[in-house]
């Protein structure tokens, strides 16, 4: 195992060295970095050219200049990183830090959501193979997969951002739209839940009526002008989360797990009703993260106290429920600040942003900043999710189908296990083995994968660093981008292999 890792790392190191050399030469040779100066009419042209040559060592030919760059990178091992300067003379190390921060902010949510949604949809389509739902989802994911992201981006800007902002000026929903949305929601839930005709009709009716009711309520109370979830929705979703998570995680038959989830839900609601104003008054990021960890710990503790023959089942279930309720309460609080945010002079009642990573000089407290981040991340995240969801759905579906055809699944059913146990414990866990490696691999590549998204939405992240470098025939920022993405790719490739071996005992690393 250790030999495997070391051998892999050494081989990867040399491969990567060769790749950086290739990249450096290609970038340096793709044009003339002095061209704009040569064409300029400024009187001190000669001295400007001279200065740039000195700044970027342009008097050294590229195949030797690479080694100057490499020496700077080598400094990283002794704690003095020097990735050179860009064509304007700014140190690349600083630029890289800023760019990395923005890119991570942009891609993290998108990647996590795409993975979760994709896997869930993949499982459902596998369980309903060759149903109308399966065909519909297959077509939709293929469609999203075929969309150029810059095209989606412009559509999202037009119809989601500008459309929604216009809607907020006069937030009334016409009855026709309510009707159409209700029918769509009904069809969606009908296809998702499936079953005999009778059940389908009932599901359709319930989903349509509930959707229409909620929309009419929102319309009448002018909910969009001052949105919040309110105590009723928070209590309902807490109890719903308790039942839902227990049903999937352990099954409702496990009374102790159910009781611990319900206890957690009760504690969460009590916190929401009585303690929240005191705790949320002066929120900071460390406190916020601390509360999230606290929720997990308290949930786990409650599960542990309820105990039972298999304690960890209750602990796991209760902790997940606690986290979900925390998320709901946090969303509710953000919503309460939404109107203050939208009404502020910087935002001017057009909250959904089409460009940039944040509203400059916004100020405001933690929640307002949170809303600001949300409105800026929303569109790029939607675009990234739409594009990347397809591959996860397809992989999960085929992996799940393969597992469901195995003998041990038939054995499990023949033993009389419940459908939940068969699907979640026997099928899902085995189907996830190949998915885990794909996920590990993708996480390694997301940092570099959003070049076009950043360009379209005006973020100054890694992609922008790279494209600007290419535009100006400026190897140092390009190489910094490549250094980070390449290193991550190598590390996560290795992790993918290790994860595969850890999950599947049949695989041996050698």
């Amino acid at each position: 195992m250790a030999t495997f890792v070391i051998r892999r790392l050494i081989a990867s190191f040399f491969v990567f060295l060769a790749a950086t050399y290739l990249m450096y030469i290609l970038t340096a040779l793709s044009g003339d970095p002095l061209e704009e100066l040569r064409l300029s009419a400024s009187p001190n042209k000669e001295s400007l050219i001279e200065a740039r040559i000195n700044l970027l060592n342009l008097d050294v030919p590229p195949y030797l200049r690479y080694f100057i760059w490499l020496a700077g990178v080598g400094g990283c091992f002794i704690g003095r990183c020097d990735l050179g300067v860009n064509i304007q003379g700014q140190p690349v190390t600083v630029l890289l830090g800023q760019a990395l921060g923005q890119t991570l902010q942009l891609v993290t949510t998108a990647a996590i959501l795409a993975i979760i949604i994709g896997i869930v949809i993949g499982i459902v389509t596998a369980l309903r193979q060759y149903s109308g739902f399966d065909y519909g989802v297959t077509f939709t994911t293929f469609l999203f997969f075929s969309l150029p992201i810059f095209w989606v981006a412009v559509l999202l800007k037009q119809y989601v951002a500008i459309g929604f902002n216009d809607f907020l000026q006069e937030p009334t929903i016409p009855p026709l739209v309510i009707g159409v949305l209700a029918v769509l929601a009904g069809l969606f839930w009908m296809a998702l839940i499936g079953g005999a005709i009778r059940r389908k009709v009932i599901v359709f009716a319930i989903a349509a009526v509930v959707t229409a009711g909620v929309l009419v309520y929102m319309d009448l109370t002018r909910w969009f002008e001052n949105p919040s979830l309110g105590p009723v929705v928070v209590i309902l979703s807490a109890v719903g989360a308790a039942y839902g998570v227990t049903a999937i995680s352990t099954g409702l038959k496990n009374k102790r797990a159910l009781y611990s989830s319900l206890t957690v839900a009760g504690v969460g609601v009590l916190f929401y009703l009585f303690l929240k104003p005191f705790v949320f008054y002066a929120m900071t990021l460390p406190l916020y993260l601390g509360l999230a960890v606290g929720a997990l710990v308290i949930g786990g503790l409650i599960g542990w106290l309820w105990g039972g023959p298999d304690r960890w089942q209750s602990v796991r279930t209760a902790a997940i429920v606690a986290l979900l309720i925390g998320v709901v309460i946090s969303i509710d609080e953000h919503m309460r600040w939404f109107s203050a945010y939208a009404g502020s002079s910087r935002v001017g009642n057009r909250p959904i942003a089409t460009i940039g990573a944040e509203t400059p000089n916004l100020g405001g407290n933690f929640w307002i900043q949170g809303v600001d981040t949300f409105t800026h991340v929303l569109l790029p995240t939607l675009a990234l999710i739409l594009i990347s969801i397809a591959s996860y759905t397809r992989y999960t579906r085929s992996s799940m189908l393969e597992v469901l055809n195995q003998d041990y699944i038939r054995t499990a059913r023949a033993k009389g296990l419940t459908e939940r146990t068969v699907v979640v414990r026997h099928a899902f866990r085995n189907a996830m083995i190949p998915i885990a490696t794909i996920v590990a691999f993708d996480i390694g590549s997301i940092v570099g994968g959003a070049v076009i998204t950043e360009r379209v939405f005006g973020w100054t992240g890694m992609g922008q660093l790279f494209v600007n470098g290419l535009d100006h025939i400026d190897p140092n920022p390009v190489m910094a981008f490549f250094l980070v993405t390449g290193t991550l790719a190598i590390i996560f490739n290795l992790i993918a292999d290790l994860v595969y071996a850890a999950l599947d005992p049949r695989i041996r690393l050698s």
Partner: protein
Amino acid sequence: MTNVNLPIPEPGHHEPGITDAESNIELKEVEGLSQGQIVRKRFFRHRGAVIAMIVLGFIVLLSFSSVGVVIGDLRIPGWWPFTWTELTDIVDRTRPSVTHPFGQDEVGRDIFAVVMRGAQQSLMVMVIAGVIATLVGTALGALAGYYRRGVDSVIMRFTDVIITIPLIVIGAVLGNGLGNLGAAVLGVVIGLFSWTSLARLVRAEFLSLREREFVDAARVAGASDGRIIFRHILPNAVGVIIVNSTLLMAAAILLETALSFLGFGVESPDTSLGKIISDNQAAFATRPWLFWWPGLFIVAIALCINFIGDGLRDAFDPRQKRVPSARTLEKAERKESGHRGSAGPSDTGSNTRGTVDATGRGTPGRPGSTAGSPDADGGR
């Protein structure tokens, strides 16, 4: 994953989870057919793939016949009255009209002609990139997988170097220098750097196929390496190759549009679908047709290729077989239980349609019945 050997009827052997009724349906479908016929039959059963093929054929015909073709200095005109460079009189404030069904841009170019030219370029990039990547990937993968050892190490380390560099980076770097040479060169560049995944898959396929008995038999009979590779192993790996080259093509067309969008691809005065969108991004509010049409053509082409790829995968992959619907299964089962005089378990209705769960799995498999057992090697 995509072994394409014919199902070998083997007495007493059951594919996991297959009942008699199911396997009988399955067997009846392939009885007396050659491999090519089975693949063709399965492909044409995939309705999405067939529709996609027709649509794609229509797009190819439309784009090349309407505005004609330019090969070097030779120019073959098409039936459309305008070309993609000529400036026409502005009709109806550039909105779509009878003379210009896709509208015009602000200087009066006919958008139908521009989009057709763009589609030509994108299709050309797609085909060139697909062919080159397939040839290079197959050749390198086959060499590495067949000869193993030193050859394998050298080729796979080389592949690693290429694979480490994200494709979009290479395209952008080379496009920066070569971009104005046009779509054909762009296609070659994309093709030369996107063969890596295919090479890995072909190598894995060759590694497992070269250990099989029929290769030993060929070698004992005195066949040369070239003959074994081309006549014995390659035909068995053709499923993997075809399926993945369609996926490569779909990726190539999106990559071309992305590169042109970033300004590293096709350059003025020529055009491509990505470039049209990039040029007119800001015009969405005033002239949405500049934006909708090229986008719709990109989506249509990429979607068709993806669907064809999906159909080919279904056709070549015996393990991704179609589970018979509950109704077909019930019918077959009734027939069978009629023969035996015992009642087959009835379909309980809800929740079982088309899924691979308990429907009718109660019938015990009789020994001696024949079941299709796609000889899965499980080597990968």
